[in-house]
């Protein structure tokens, strides 16, 4: 048979397979045991507990190390590790799979790692009348002392209506990365405000064309530039309500700055994860506002910019003149405990270990730990590596100055930006004129996901 009809039959076969699987699972679900959940001691309904039951843990490829470290430290707790994509790149597989388990009423994993920040928004809520997936962690399951030790604000993406539904793995606060060697050679000062940043960009365009001071090609551009500018694009005011106003002066100033810098070529519309970026800009990145994980993912990565040791410096995120510096955040993983778990104790021990224990967070973790005491040791360790040209104080300070006016809703701000703004920038449109369009796109997406938009 030819491809078109084969493709068609494959597609319908896949659809059909899905349908039958759902049907079969639904039927199987009807015959399941009837020991329903009872009101639990921790603020959510729980099933009968069994301290010996093995727990299933979902991690992405990078977090397999965390599970391995746990096995070594706690051989007495039996865990079964399942690797999945971490819900990354908009796949949303975490949510998709849990919804299917909700339909069949069985099969949930006990602990899940997600690379995203918007999972608590749905995992904390009942869905079609089914019990919320995420266990409440601050109702006695995790000791309050542990929760208090997290960097202030670190658990914001996990907190819905005052209840903590996940533990943060790492923080992704935006700082200003810069190449100290280039700054010294050009005789420039590292900017302390966005106004200075913009002025320096204009200077670089004239004096050292080809060098860049940032990028707008990635979906997290709003989190890097608009979050720290206190733009009201994502003010989550309740579990199902959001306020969006992207035409405020705070949004305008960031957009207008970017318009200038895009136009003069110092802030290209290129994703940092493309071969194009590496080809064009290796050795030419003067500075770049970006999350803490840029260090390992881009600068100190042989496959990317591969900046030699002793050149990369880090400065605090710039402030807007006359204001205190606040910053944005780009991701940072989260760990969830299932409210359906038969062994909450083991799930809790595991989750606490991977987020707080030095064995993982200091010894192995690539990102800046969200757990305060681990973060301090992590910074000391990184500084002693001799890679950085400066100390890492800026990262620590930025970790506590993430602006709280930007929330974590179900819908993805990044997806909205990518599809409405990135192509428009490529077409040469100005960000300032695109702001109303951006607002409409966010509102539409929020409404589709059941939000009331203010």
């Amino acid at each position, binding site marked *: *048979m*030819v*491809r*078109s*009809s084969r*493709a*068609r039959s*494959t*597609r*319908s*076969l896949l*659809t*059909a*397979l*899905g*349908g*039958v699987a*759902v*049907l079969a699972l639904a039927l199987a679900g009807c015959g399941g045991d009837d020991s329903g959940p009872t009101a639990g001691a921790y603020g959510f309904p729980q099933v009968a507990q069994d301290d010996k039951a093995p727990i299933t843990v979902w991690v992405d490829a990078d977090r397999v190390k965390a599970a391995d470290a746990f096995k070594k430290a706690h051989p007495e707790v039996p865990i079964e590790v399942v690797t999945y994509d971490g819900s990354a*790149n*908009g*796949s*949303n597989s975490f*949510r*998709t799979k849990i*919804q299917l388990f*909700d339909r069949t009423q069985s099969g949930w994993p006990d602990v899940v790692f997600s690379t995203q920040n918007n999972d608590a928004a749905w995992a904390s809520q009942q*869905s*079609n*009348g089914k019990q919320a997936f995420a266990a409440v962690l601050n109702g006695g399951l995790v000791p309050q002392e542990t929760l208090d030790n997290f960097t202030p604000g670190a658990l914001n993406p996990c907190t819905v209506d005052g209840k903590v539904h996940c533990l943060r793995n790492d923080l992704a606060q935006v700082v200003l990365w810069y190449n100290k060697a280039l700054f010294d050679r050009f005789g420039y000062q590292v900017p302390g405000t966005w106004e200075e940043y913009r002025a320096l960009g204009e200077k670089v365009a004239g004096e050292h064309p080809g060098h860049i001071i940032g990028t707008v*090609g*990635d*979906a997290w551009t709003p989190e890097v530039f608009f979050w720290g500018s206190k733009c009201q694009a994502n003010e989550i005011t309740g579990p199902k309500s959001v306020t969006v106003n992207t035409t405020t002066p705070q949004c305008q100033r960031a957009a207008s700055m970017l318009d200038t810098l895009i136009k003069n070529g110092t802030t290209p*519309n*290129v*994703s940092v*994860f*493309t*071969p*194009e970026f590496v*080809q064009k800009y290796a050795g030419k990145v003067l500075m770049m506002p970006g999350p803490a994980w840029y260090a390992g993912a881009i600068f100190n990565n042989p496959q990317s910019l591969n900046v030699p040791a002793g050149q990369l410096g880090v400065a605090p995120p710039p402030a807007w003149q006359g204001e205190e510096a606040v910053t944005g955040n780009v991701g940072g993983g989260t760990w969830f405990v299932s409210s359906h778990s038969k062994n909450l104790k083991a799930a809790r021990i595991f989750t606490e270990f991977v987020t707080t224990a030095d064995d993982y967070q200091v010894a192995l973790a690539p990102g800046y730990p969200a757990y305060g005491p681990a973060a301090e040791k992590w910074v000391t360790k990184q500084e002693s590596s001799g890679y950085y040209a400066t100390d890492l104080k800026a990262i620590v300070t930025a970790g506590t100055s993430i602006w709280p006016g930007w929330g974590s809703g179900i819908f*993805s701000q*990044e*997806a909205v930006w*990518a*599809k409405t703004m*990135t*192509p428009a920038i*490529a*077409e040469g449109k100005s960000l300032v004129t695109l702001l109303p369009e951006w607002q409409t796109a966010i509102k*539409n997406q929020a*409404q*589709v*996901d059941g939000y009331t938009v203010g």
Partner: protein
Amino acid sequence: MTLVDRTARAAAVATRRPPARPPATRDSLLSYGLISGYAVLTLAFGLLPALYAVYLAFTDATGGFAGLANFTKAVGDFRFWPAVSHVALYLIIWLVALVLLVTVLAVIVHAIRVRWLSRTLRFVFYLPGALAGASSVLLWLFVLDPTASPVGGLLRLFGFDSFVQVILPGNLPVIFAVIAFWTGAGGWIVIMYGALNNISAEVIEAARVDGANAVQIAWRIQLPMLRKWIAYMSMMSLAAGTQLFVEPQLLSQASNAVVPNDYSLNQLAYQYAFQQNDFNTAAAISLLLLVVALALSAVFVTRGGLFERE
């Protein structure tokens, strides 16, 4: 089957009347056996899920009757009409290109008298179709990125310096049509070639004797006799095309959502089912797709004379 055939068969049956129902022979048992596998699979993976979709489309999350609520919700979604227009534009570009190019290429390949050349060409045309859908899209991800593409120079010639410029919304219908043509056309060329072989040599010979040249033969003899095959190709391709999914979905992931994940109707249905946990509206969208594809197929069937018997 001609009338003569049928009368002869009837006569033959009449003469061996006595056993009113002939006992099942080994042959017919075998044919039931062979067909049963297909029938069971069609039932399990084709018909039952389709019925389940109909059930879902008219009920709500709790199983209560929902009337047309799911349909109005889908049609009222801000992503619905853009998706419809995306798919429609893609279909127009692709179907026209498919019909024109496949027919022309098949006639040309058929006209080539050098055996090895004709055979090689058919093989080359067919080759891309041998790649499964998703992997051929992955290949295109590289072709479309000017910095990684083997035809990067060509892309830059058209003013595309970066991947984002290539995948701007305005270019997408053409890109998807090109990908679909590249993967699907070869198979159809081979089929059309077979159909051309079926045209009796005497007819062509007669035309030639009457003084028709190659173009006239193609236009006045071959094309009219291919009509059913072209209609068949259009119908199958239309059905496949309305279900556009793999190409935009992969391109969306590869471009970190610059190509939206709700570009086509099937993607929108997927979003509803697996992101918004709303299987009912997803089912409603798939039913709408089915109705539209059926209606358009009916046009091809009647206009193409697909069910006419000579």
